[in-house]
């Protein structure tokens, strides 16, 4: 064992081991390595982590260089430094830091006043948006996954839900945004419903595909061991559909973030989306950049978490069919 591992990594590793112990499995250190030997010609073999790091570095470098050399006017492309300055300004991080030090009794200075942007700090904007997206996402999971499973299991729900889902799914949220406002007002309800709709379809359709991916042999074997239809659903179909359901969650949350700016277009007090829209109105490109980066980082970290969840909780994914 590597003793210099970071505590966080150790914690995740422990969580994984507990889960495997819970499943009655045992991770032996060699197992994971043995499974990743790729054969000649396998599409996409090899690791890509380092390449991604290089790509990101080059993009940042080009960004910095093009503003440094003034290839592009700052109005179109603000420099990384300006965006960082804006971040400090509207996140109020220095003020919070001062308050924190006062709280600890290290200093006793009066914190500098900080109002953020649009009467809210970056933190408040982010929380407002996170609340909307995750409320909508959780409700969509609660409804979408069972509906998708029932669509996979039985022809009646499939017949009922298939036309409406397939009909509204390709329509851009901006097209039905006016309707949600007319129907549900300009409060948070309309915004959550808009994001909910964006999350719902991929969740339901992936859950349905997950049910379909359960092999008929697994179901037949369960029946031949005396299982009842209810037991087959609980012990075979639901667990077999889990990998696809998790994929659906990854897709859905990405759709949710995609819809966020549209949802916050009308009458939102705080939110990353409305922050970006208002900043654009004043040509504050630096804040637009900041908003985009924040949304991107949150969405990407959530995706990384979901990938880890997949690797840990459905380790058999991709091992067959």
């Amino acid at each position, binding site marked *: 064992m590597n003793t210099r591992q970071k505590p966080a990594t150790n914690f995740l590793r422990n969580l994984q081991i507990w889960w495997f112990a819970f499943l*009655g*499995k045992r991770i032996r250190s060699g197992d994971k390595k043995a499974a*990743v030997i*790729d054969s000649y010609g396998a599409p996409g073999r090899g690791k890509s982590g380092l390449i991604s790091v290089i790509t990101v570095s080059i993009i940042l470098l080009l960004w910095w260089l093009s503003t440094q050399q003034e290839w592009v006017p700052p109005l179109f492309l603000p420099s990384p430094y300006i965006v960082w300055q804006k971040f400090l300004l509207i996140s109020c991080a220095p003020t919070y830091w001062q308050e924190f030090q006062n709280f600890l009794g290290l200093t006793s200075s009066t914190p500098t006043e900080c109002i953020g942007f649009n009467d809210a700090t970056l933190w408040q904007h982010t929380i407002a948006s996170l609340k909307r997206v995750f409320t909508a996402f959780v409700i969509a999971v609660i409804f979408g996954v069972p509906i998708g499973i029932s669509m996979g299991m039985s022809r009646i729900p499939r017949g009922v839900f298939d036309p409406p889902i397939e009909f509204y799914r390709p329509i851009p949220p901006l097209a039905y945004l006016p309707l949600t406002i007319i129907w549900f007002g300009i409060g948070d309800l309309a915004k959550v419903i808009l994001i909910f709709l964006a999350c719902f379809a991929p969740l339901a359709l992936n859950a349905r595909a997950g049910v379909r991916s359960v*092999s008929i042999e697994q179901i037949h*074997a369960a029946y031949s061991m005396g299982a009842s239809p209810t037991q087959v659903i609980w012990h075979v179909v639901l667990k077999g559909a889990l990998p696809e359901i998790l994929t659906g969650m990854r897709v859905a949350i990405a759709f949710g973030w995609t819809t966020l700016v549209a949802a916050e277009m009308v009458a939102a007090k705080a939110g990353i989306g409305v922050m970006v829209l208002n900043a654009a109105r004043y040509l504050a490109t630096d804040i637009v950049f900041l908003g985009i980066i924040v949304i991107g980082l949150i969405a990407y970290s959530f995706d990384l978490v979901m990938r880890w969840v997949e690797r840990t909780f459905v380790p058999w994914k991709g091992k067959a069919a």
Partner: protein
Amino acid sequence: MMSRTTKGDKKASQVVLNLEKVGVVFPGNLGSGDVTALKNVNLAMRDREFIVALGASGCGKTTLLNVMAGFIKPTAGRIRIKGKEVDGPSKDRGVVFEDVWGPGKDRGVVFQKHALLPWLNVLQNTAFGLKLQGVGERERLKISRDNLDLVGLKDFEQHPVFQLSGGMQQRVGLARALTSNPDILLMDEPLGALDAFTRETMQELILNVWHKTHKAVFFITHSVEEALFMATRLIVMSPRPGRITHEYELTFWKDFLDRGDARKIKSRADFIKMRETVLSIIHGEEEPEL
């Protein structure tokens, strides 16, 4: 090794499964006519019998097994287990499928067949049926461990099934089917995905397990050698429409259980002669236009 006795085989054997004039017709769709998968199949399976079904692809072997298991309702004829009409699957008939959860070694080749549950380990997979039947934990783990011991997987009970080799996965499938203590074991090409060496080992293991557990077995294979070696009764099937064309009572299995040494039996003159006879039957009846 214990000396194996084949005494008691002469005991009056009882018919456990009876197929009478069974036919299966799948309705065709859009222009293609109905497909007769099975026509007029009669088969009486006796206690402790090891019936092997052999035939080219499309001869209805798997359909026949599905009818026995209760997954397919025959469109003609009747099927009874110990005199009782079959109505759907039940734990008196255990099924073993071809299981191929590869540890990534066959990437790119997509196998659809897998019957083990990858979220359960070897022991949990084996105990799965008993758990569903509401058998208490202590008892079901004991029965499962006994069966894992029987197939030689005692030391692997905590392993995830998708990391096992093909042969081991088949052993889990076998142990799992035995754990519900069925009267009949239905085995749908369980060794089809294995390499030749593992396959021979597994043939011997299955014969030994069969001999110890006294189950009636219905076993499907593509391999003539496997069929001759394992069967107490061999049925040769023929396609379009799927039907039984030849039946043989065989005793090669008995020689193996008495004396061991499978290779020697398989290279004996009478074995080879039988093999060529069966092969010529199968080849002779293949229709040239397909």
